[in-house]
């Protein structure tokens, strides 16, 4: 038992994560070809516009459709289906918590690949001041609010159906993920109405921004992802968690240094046990790069499955380069 635990704690974490992400990417972008279907309540961007290959659909797509029904319908049995949908989403979510972002989300994985590309080219990542950052991360709550409210407006007849589903229209996954199955039809501007022009143009711009952004900034999109905001509303329920033992922390900042989302609290907070913040993607890189025994750990339903160890740190850091 002990040796298994040691083996896990000393794993070459970045390599493990790379392969895990790759497998998840293949599953959710091409799994449809193998008739895999995990439903349409998934808590990450398995894009529904990827008609052929997807092995399930991102919850935001049906959610926006459901909310976009005519108002009288919202108060019938259909309204109930919104709640059941949310229930299924939460069930998926609590299993991995935000680990869906760090390990499964195809869009997250793509960002990591863009980062790897930049790293391979030897270009440094962008640095911004912490203040600028904190402002930016609030955008995701605004986006979430819009994602929920605009469909309601459409259902109420306030706005055109051309605006539906509003977030999907500007989500870069809509363009990028279908492209992996050879479907480039989303890389277009829709000139059928003004709304469509604006939304598709915005979509293209966001896609371009996504590419440039995640090239120069690790996990750029995750800062503003409304799914991440939706996650955070339920993260208290989740089974998979990130814990910190502040007494063991020397605040050396190693975890903060490797954090893709530059979460300062991970290094500086020593009072709270539950250290996960709303930006966190639970990628567990912080755990892998913490040299203090048991200072950071990932637990599932209270059982520690991966924790920081001195030996693991030395092994990983001596290895240096990631795959």
């Amino acid at each position: 038992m002990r040796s298994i635990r040691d083996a896990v704690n000393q794993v070459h974490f970045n390599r493990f994560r790379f392969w895990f992400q790759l497998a998840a990417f293949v599953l959710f972008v091409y799994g449809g070809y193998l008739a895999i279907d995990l439903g349409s309540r998934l808590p990450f961007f398995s894009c529904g516009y990827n008609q052929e290959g997807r092995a399930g659909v991102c919850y935001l797509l049906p959610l926006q459709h459901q909310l976009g029904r005519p108002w009288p319908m919202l108060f019938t049995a259909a309204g109930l289906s919104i709640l059941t949908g949310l229930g299924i989403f939460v069930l998926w979510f609590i299993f991995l918590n935000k680990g869906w972002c760090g390990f499964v989300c195809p869009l997250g994985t793509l960002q990591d690949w863009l980062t790897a590309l930049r790293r391979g080219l030897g270009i440094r990542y962008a640095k911004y001041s912490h203040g600028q950052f904190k402002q930016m991360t609030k955008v995701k709550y605004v986006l979430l609010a819009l994602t929920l409210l605009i469909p309601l407006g459409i259902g109420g007849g306030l706005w055109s159906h051309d605006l539906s589903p509003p977030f999907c229209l500007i989500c870069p996954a809509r363009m990028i993920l279908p492209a992996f199955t050879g479907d480039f039809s989303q890389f277009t501007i829709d000139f059928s109405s003004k709304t469509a022009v604006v939304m598709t143009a915005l979509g293209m711009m966001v896609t371009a921004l996504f590419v440039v952004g995640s090239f120069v900034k690790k996990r750029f999109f995750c800062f503003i992802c409304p799914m991440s905001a939706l996650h955070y509303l339920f993260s208290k329920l989740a089974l998979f968690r990130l814990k910190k033992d502040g007494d063991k922390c020397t605040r050396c900042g190693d975890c903060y240094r490797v954090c893709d989302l530059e979460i300062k609290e991970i290094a500086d907070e020593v009072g709270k046990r539950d250290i996960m913040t709303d930006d966190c993607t639970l990628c567990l890189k912080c755990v892998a790069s913490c040299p203090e025994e048991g200072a950071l750990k990932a637990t599932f339903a209270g059982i520690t499955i991966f924790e920081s160890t001195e030996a693991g740190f030395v092994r990983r850091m001596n290895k240096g380069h990631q795959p």
Partner: protein
Amino acid sequence: MNASPTPEVPAFQRSRQARESEITLDHITDDFDGNPAAMQYFYDLFRRVFIQGEALPHEGKLIGTTCIQAPDELIYAVGATPVRLCNGSYHYDQIGADFMPAKSCALVKATLGMLHSATRIPKTARPDLIVNPTTCDQKKKSSAMIEGMGYAVYDLEMPNVKESEEARLYWQRSVRQFAHKLREVTGKKLTRQNLKKAIAKTSRAQAAFRQLHNFRKSSPAVILGKDVFLITNAFFFDDIDRWSDAVEKLNAELTQRQAEGFKAAQRKAPRILFTGSPPVFPNLKLPVLIEEAGGVVVADETCSANRMLYDMTAVDEWLVNDMVDSLADKYLKPCTCPIFARNDDRKRRLLDLVASFEADGVVYQALAGCQVYEMEQKSIAEALNAQGIPMLYVETDYSPDDQGQLSTRIEAFLESIKTRKRKAAA
């Protein structure tokens, strides 16, 4: 006793510096039984360097550093050799008193005195550059004095807070500028390869140190604090690879000792955590007194040992930019020097060390003149006392004349710990 026999005695062996070094070293080697065999390397090293005045070799340019905040890795990366100039000699302290007020910190004075002295011990070539991190006021002021002696000095700008993100960025900038300065001095550029290699070099040393550090958790102790201080003091000037080899060898011996149930101190010996101003050879007065009085120093929180070697560098992207910033973070964020405003980290660090090393008490050394340590002792004592850990605050300097008084205090402290333990057991 263990000195390799030298046919002719160099003139300066009769110098005060050599004498005080010899006295300290004799105490360290002769007053205790069962010194680890692997320690012989360090005993010999100190004898050769401090008593026989052996010259230290170095590769490339020689870069002197006056504080642990100067990143060694950058120096190694550009093919230069770092040597830490912090000095513990009373002899040099008195020479240094010509530069600084008598009430100022003995360590800074001794460093100045050593640099001013014709026979610098440890005997190195003249440093091509002295990096002086602007930590405390005395070090800040000493940079101009060192420059006045004809050395090239570089002030490595250090923020006085470390909590804020601005301070972090400021320090990262300082370190990056320092890297450029090193390039100017050595003519060599930082590359991914040489920097990565340098980090690996220090990481190895740190891993060895951490292993040694962990051995000190065992009870009864398998190694005494005076030996560990000697080892970490050797890190100041010894070749890093040879140093790592020696520590790894010692670790292997300690593994064996632990398995055999070896006792380096009595089973009931009070376990002491040492904190405050750094003990620098030959001023190991206090740790030696503690262990001579029957205590054992099981851990320390000083910049001549733990703080210098404990915290390791984590790098996410092995690019020069990221590695340099990672190094900067490592040298700032975990540092528990009281010079920083708001320093709760030091309390937490001490409490964690007390808990994980099962320390019974804390000895807090403040070198007279080191105001920040003097100022912080009260809050530290309160924090420790709140957890039921007694603390002995000792204000001292490099002079040997308070040894009698100190030993009384230390013995009384150890006696009170023993009584306390006996009471707790009852």
